[in-house]
């Protein structure tokens, strides 16, 4: 199974989402936050935006600065900083394996802020562990049970997870 940046992002928030995404069960597309995300993606960084597909990763923005490659990941908010950071780190690691050295930038257009991300050996170890566990979760016949966490409140899966009775 190809592990993508999306899997990594979900892994650090909710393991159940990893299973659902791995089984092609996407979240409710009518959800308002999904619309906002799509809108941000369409409307920001129009001057230099190229979505690039490299292997199984999809990079939001690629540019060159002082001869170095900078890859950017655009997010609606910095609330899930850890997840976003690992997603970008995974991209950096994937590029590194291809022999490309790059720098990462998390972009939060709504907050007018950006954050630089660098790949360390500790981060790489974490990523390797995450990739391994994502594969294990995906192989499970049944999704992990939902857990009520703060993320549920704005999650586009919330109705699916909590529909009962």
């Amino acid at each position, binding site marked *: 199974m190809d592990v993508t940046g999306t899997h990594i992002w979900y892994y650090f928030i909710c393991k159940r989402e990893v299973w659902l995404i791995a*089984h*092609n*069960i*996407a979240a*409710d*597309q*009518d959800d308002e936050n999904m619309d906002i995300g799509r809108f941000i993606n369409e409307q920001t960084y129009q001057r230099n935006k190229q979505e690039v597909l490299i292997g199984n990763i999809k990079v939001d923005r690629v540019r060159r600065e002082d001869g170095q490659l900078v890859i950017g990941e655009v997010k609606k908010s910095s609330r899930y900083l850890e997840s976003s950071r690992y997603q970008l780190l995974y991209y950096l690691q994937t590029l590194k394996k291809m022999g490309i050295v790059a720098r990462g930038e998390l972009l939060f257009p709504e907050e007018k802020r950006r954050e630089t991300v660098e790949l360390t050996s500790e981060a790489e170890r974490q990523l390797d562990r995450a990739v391994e566990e994502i594969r294990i979760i995906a192989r499970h*016949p*049944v*999704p992990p*049970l939902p857990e009520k966490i703060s993320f549920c409140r704005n999650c586009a899966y*919330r*109705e*699916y997870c*909590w*529909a*009962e*009775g």
Partner: protein
Amino acid sequence: MKKTLYIFKSGELRRKDNSLYFESEERKKYIPIEDTNDIYIFGEVDVSKRFLEFVSQKEVCLHYFNHYGYYVGSFYPREHQNAGHVVMKQAEHYIDSDKRMTLARKFVHGSIGQMSQVLKYYTGRVGSGTGVLTQLLAQFKDTAKPLADAGSIEEIMAVEGHAREKYYSAFDYIIGNPDFPFEKRSKRPPLNRLNALISFGNSICYTMVLSEVYKTYLDPRIGYLHSTNFRRFSLNLDVAEIFKPIVVDRLIFTLINKKMLTKKDFDKHIDGITLSESGKKTFISELDKRMQTTVNHRHLGKSVSYRRMIRLELYKIQKHILGEKEYVPYQSLW
């Protein structure tokens, strides 16, 4: 929440720029597609392939009804939500007869629960017949019991039919209007006004559920209670069993008891009776209001509309077939 568009006029539906555009003799109108969930077509409406491509891309279902208000069919756009795993599991629950009967029983259970809820609601509200309704309600408690022993889909269906017969026998007391006697259930064509209302309401309910199925990963062709032949939609018929009593039947009682519909709103034909255009409009607009009504959902911790409740029911079924949580049909509390 996106809206449902109902078209009674005759005219042409087109794509104009990135909007829906309806043109009839009297008026021209733009309708925002992003805010449209599905479209019900009652009038003589022409559409083009370009239009169908547009609604397909925007994931909007079209439901057609003929001049008499009978369901004609749906334009169910190309599947946009695909998850092989879900369809495989859905089929597994059909092929394995134990699994299939488990689900079929649940639908009937849910349906009987909702019917008795309707009876309960009206027991204290009818002018005369409280005694009869109380008695009926007591008998109703036993109607679901044979479900446990039912060994085939046919037997499960029979339990449902038996319960429904009992349930219908209460209609004359709930309505108490000589213009709307129940007599007996007649379809294709309905032979009296009340039957015309039930048929019309049920067919709208089926399509409403179908539109919601489209928004999930479930395949509408694989039903459990209503048999599948892989050509006709049937999952929506199963799920509609849960919603017909509280959505359609209660609406009918309200419309008649509040005299919002009278015998003037029906057309007689040689072989049956149907709602007139004005009758259909009244029915639809009240139904739409009802579907937008929100009720507090115990588990989600927020209010959801009845329309949304249908979607949640489908999510529950999906979770059942994925093996994560056993399906418990929705039970209205009032």
